[in-house]
């Protein structure tokens, strides 16, 4: 019995190890590019150099784009988690009619190729004489980020044990106290997962940004795309690695400070 257990467990670990390797393989490739001295992307690598990182950090265009992308992404995370979580609660608890219809509708921005969304938003802003302000960019990103928060929060809400809330109410807690001290903490893992998506989605967003950025106000993906059309060297790989390191550091910090892990199981 224990041998069968050990075998199944080993298989489980091997399977998961292979999956993680699959996920990380392209990143290893990108890292190789970023360190490879040749001024074009090739394999096998011929050496190690930091010149692409230097090029990335010393380029004002890349740096401005990086900061703008981060700035927009942070605002988008805040907006989309609030809007998305409220929406999830409303749909799950508000006794609104048409639950399935509502969730499908709010998922729809993801099904439409973002170039159409970007073009349509651009046309709208132009018609309204608004130009292309940064808040327009934020709105565009938030639009495609909210569905993620909504889905992940709803998924957690659907698995909810209402009895915890009922118990709190029976012990004398007022409805708002139940909400803030029981419900909200319990949906936190869904909201956090959604927030992580929102950050990634905004940071990596390309087609909508293509239409809504202004000259010298471009996000990193736009700058990278344009760069790669005309230059094919390690600088884009360096940009990629920097993005990864930055975001992972943020996740690590978040983990240390609030202990993300604790919110996954309760």
């Amino acid at each position, binding site marked *: 019995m224990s041998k069968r257990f050990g075998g199944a467990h080993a298989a489980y670990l091997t399977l998961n190890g292979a999956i993680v390797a699959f996920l990380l393989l392209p990143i290893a490739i990108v890292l190789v590019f970023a360190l490879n001295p040749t*001024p*074009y*992307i*090739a*394999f096998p690598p011929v050496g190690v150099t930091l010149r692409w990182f230097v090029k990335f950090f010393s380029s004002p*265009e890349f740096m401005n784009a990086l900061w703008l992308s981060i700035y927009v992404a942070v605002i988008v995370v805040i907006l989309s988690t609030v809007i998305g979580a409220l929406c999830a609660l409303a749909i799950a608890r508000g006794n609104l009619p048409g639950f399935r219809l509502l969730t499908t509708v709010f998922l729809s921005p993801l099904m439409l190729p973002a170039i159409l969304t970007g*073009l349509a938003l*651009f*046309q709208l802003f*132009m018609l309204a004489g608004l130009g292309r302000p940064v808040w327009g960019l934020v709105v565009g990103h938030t639009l495609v980020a909210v569905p993620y928060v909504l889905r992940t929060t709803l998924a957690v809400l659907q698995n909810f044990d209402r009895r915890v809330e009922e118990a709190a109410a029976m012990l004398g807690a007022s409805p708002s106290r139940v909400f803030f001290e029981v419900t909200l903490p319990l949906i936190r893992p869904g909201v956090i997962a959604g927030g992580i998506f929102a950050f990634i989605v905004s940071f990596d967003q390309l087609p909508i*940004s*293509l*239409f809504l*950025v*202004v*000259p*010298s106000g*471009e996000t990193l993906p*736009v*700058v990278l795309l*344009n*760069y*790669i*059309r*005309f*230059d*094919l060297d390690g600088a884009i790989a360096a940009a990629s690695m920097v993005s990864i390191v930055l975001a992972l550091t943020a996740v690590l910090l978040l983990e240390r400070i609030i202990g993300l892990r604790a919110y996954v199981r309760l």
Partner: protein
Amino acid sequence: MTKWTFSRRTFLQGTAAAAATIAAPAVHAQTPVLKTTAWGGKWGEVLKGQVIPAFEKEHKCKVETDSAFPYYPKLQATPKNAPLYDVLHTNTSEQWQAVVEGLVEPKLSAKDIPNLADLYPYATSDKICGVSAFTSAIGFGYRTDKGLSEPKSWKDLADPKFAGARGSYIIPVNSLGQMHLMMLGKIYGKGLTDLDAAYKALEQLKPIKMYDFTGGMEKALLSAEVNIGVLHDSGIYRYDGQNQPIAFAAPSEGVLSLEQVWNITPGTKMRELANQYINFILSPDVQKTLCEAVWYSPSNKKVKLGANYDAKLYNTEAKVAQLIQVDWKWYNERKDDIDARVTRILRG
């Protein structure tokens, strides 16, 4: 510790500073802004790093460049009397789409842009709306380390030994691919507009790898993913000095012209500045700077390039006469049908 005293001098300095601060935005608001487009990469670096600052200084203005391609849909989405761009720089095919919709001027005025007089004839021919400031020649890029002799004819692409190792472009989205299709009509049929011959020839080219922009083709050549591909000379020469086993071949039937075209929008409020900007781009010094940065051929006859550039680029009357210009107006009218047909041929 000295006590800060409110002297008359301090008062005057303070007032002057305050006045300057209040006046500064007003002065800044009066700086005219020219909105235009620019490619990224090396071109963008040199344009924005050297060329544009010189222009801004000389004309006391600010130039904003949009690098987020595609430009046409954005221009089309803005009203004609308040266009998104004052000056549009893009390839010939897109300029023709724009002129048909009335989004750019059909011809530029030699009175307003003096340098137009110094250009090679192709730069303002009737195949161009606006002005072609730079061009590159489209031929073949090929690998020199595969025991291949230099391709001499466009027909060499169909050589069986290149099966699975030749490359071209996704025709619906790339103008080099579109020009190659037209060239197939010329080589195998009656001319650049013989689509039937072109479709047949395209069928014979299968299997062929298709890329959506020249960077992809460059990468494919460099990694030996393909051994021969349709490419412009700039795409090969930019690796000059890096000892790459790739070279450019100009087929004997002629090379196609990939023009960089500048034009003005009819509704621009900055017409004078726009004309000056285009004139600036056409001036010999600026042409030399940009050509030597990315290996484009200049259209101003008075440009003197460095020796190694002169040897390879199209910088004389004789060489320039070899450039083949296509009829984009004709192509764009049929584009949808061509795209559908080509996709069917290549997908099956």
